[in-house]
C-alpha cells in the first residue's frame, strides 16, 4: 500500500460501478492515495465514498458536471483546501453517443465533444497551476482505441478521443518544465456499465465482441485501473506525452 501513499488525486466519473473511474478509485485507495472523487451521480458517488472510507482512505466526494468551467475551479480549490495540494488528476468522466454520421444532430455533436474533450481541456487547464504549486504532478486522460482507429458509428466519439490524445501530448510538452506529466490511456473493449447496456440491447452481437480481441475476451475495469495507477505513480516518472493502449491486442494488427 505504498505506490500512491499520500498522493492527492482527483478522479472524475467515479460513481459508475462497474466502470473505469470506480475501479481506479478502488486501486488508488488500496495504494494509499488521498482521494477527491467526482460525478454527476451523487447517489452512486455516495456509495463509492462509503466503500473507500471503510477501507481507511481519506476521501472528499463532490458533485461535478465536468463541462462546467467554474465547477472545475471549485473542485481544484476544495482539493487544495482539504488536502494541501494536488498530485494526480484522472480525467475519466465521459459518455458514448454512438450512431451513424447522418443521424447525428448538432446537439449530439456538442454533447459528445463537450463531455469527452472540452472537459478534459478544462481539467488540465485548471489542475496544472495546483500541481505546479505542489512541485509537479501527473495527469492521466482517458482516451480510447476509438481515437486511434476509425470505426463505424463511432465518428464523433472517436474525434473527441483523438483530441484527448493530442491534447495530452501538448500538455506534456508545455508543462514538462513544471514537473507535470501528462499521458493518455486507450482502453479497448472493457466490461463496464456501457457494455452492460449493449449486452442488454443486443446479447448475441455483444457475445461476439470478445472474439474480436486477440486475447479472446473483453477486459476488466481493474485491468485498466492498474495501468492508470502505473501512469499516475512515480514508477512512470520518465513517461510523459505517451499513450498506453490497454485493449488485449485489438488494434495491434
Amino acid at each position: 500500500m505504498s505506490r500512491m501513499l499520500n498522493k492527492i488525486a482527483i478522479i472524475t466519473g467515479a460513481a459508475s460501478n462497474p466502470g473505469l473511474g470506480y475501479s481506479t478509485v478502488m486501486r488508488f485507495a488500496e495504494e494509499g492515495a488521498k482521494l477527491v472523487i467526482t460525478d454527476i451521480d451523487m447517489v452512486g458517488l455516495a456509495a463509492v465514498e462509503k466503500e473507500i472510507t471503510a477501507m481507511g482512505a481519506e476521501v472528499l466526494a463532490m458533485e461535478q458536471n465536468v463541462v462546467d468551467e467554474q465547477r472545475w475551479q471549485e473542485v481544484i480549490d476544495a482539493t487544495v483546501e482539504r488536502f494541501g495540494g494536488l498530485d494526480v488528476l484522472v480525467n475519466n468522466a465521459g459518455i458514448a453517443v454512438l450512431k451513424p454520421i447522418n443521424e447525428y444532430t448538432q446537439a449530439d455533436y456538442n454533447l459528445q465533444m463537450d463531455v469527452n474533450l472540452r472537459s478534459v481541456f478544462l481539467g488540465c487547464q485548471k489542475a496544472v497551476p495546483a500541481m505546479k504549486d505542489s512541485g509537479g504532478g501527473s495527469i492521466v486522460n482517458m482516451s480510447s482505441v476509438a481515437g486511434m482507429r476509425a470505426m463505424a458509428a463511432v465518428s464523433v466519439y472517436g474525434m473527441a478521443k483523438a483530441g484527448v490524445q493530442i491534447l495530452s501530448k501538448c500538455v506534456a510538452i508545455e508543462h514538462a518544465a513544471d514537473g507535470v506529466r501528462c499521458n493518455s490511456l486507450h482502453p479497448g473493449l472493457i466490461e463496464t456499465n456501457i457494455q452492460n447496456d449493449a449486452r442488454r440491447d443486443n446479447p448475441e452481437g455483444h457475445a461476439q465482441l470478445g472474439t474480436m480481441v486477440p486475447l479472446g475476451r473483453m477486459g476488466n475495469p481493474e485491468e485498466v485501473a492498474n495501468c492508470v495507477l502505473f501512469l499516475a505513480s512515480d514508477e512512470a516518472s520518465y513517461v510523459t506525452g505517451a499513450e498506453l493502449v490497454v485493449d488485449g491486442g485489438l488494434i495491434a494488427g
Partner: protein
Amino acid sequence: MAIDFTDQVVLVTGAGAGAGLGYSCAVAFANGVISLASDLSSFSTGSLLEVDGGWNAI
C-alpha cells in the same frame, strides 16, 4: 504494495552493466515494481510505451 512476483520465473538479458537498463530491470523485479511485465498490465499486449521524457511527443 509491491507487485507479487512470487514463483514467477523471469529472464533478463543484458543484465550485467551496473548503469544499464537490464541491470535496472533486474533490480526492479527483485523489488517488485515492474508494471508492464506483471499481471497489472494483463489486458495490454501488442502496445508500445514510450519512456522518453516527452521527446517523441513533439
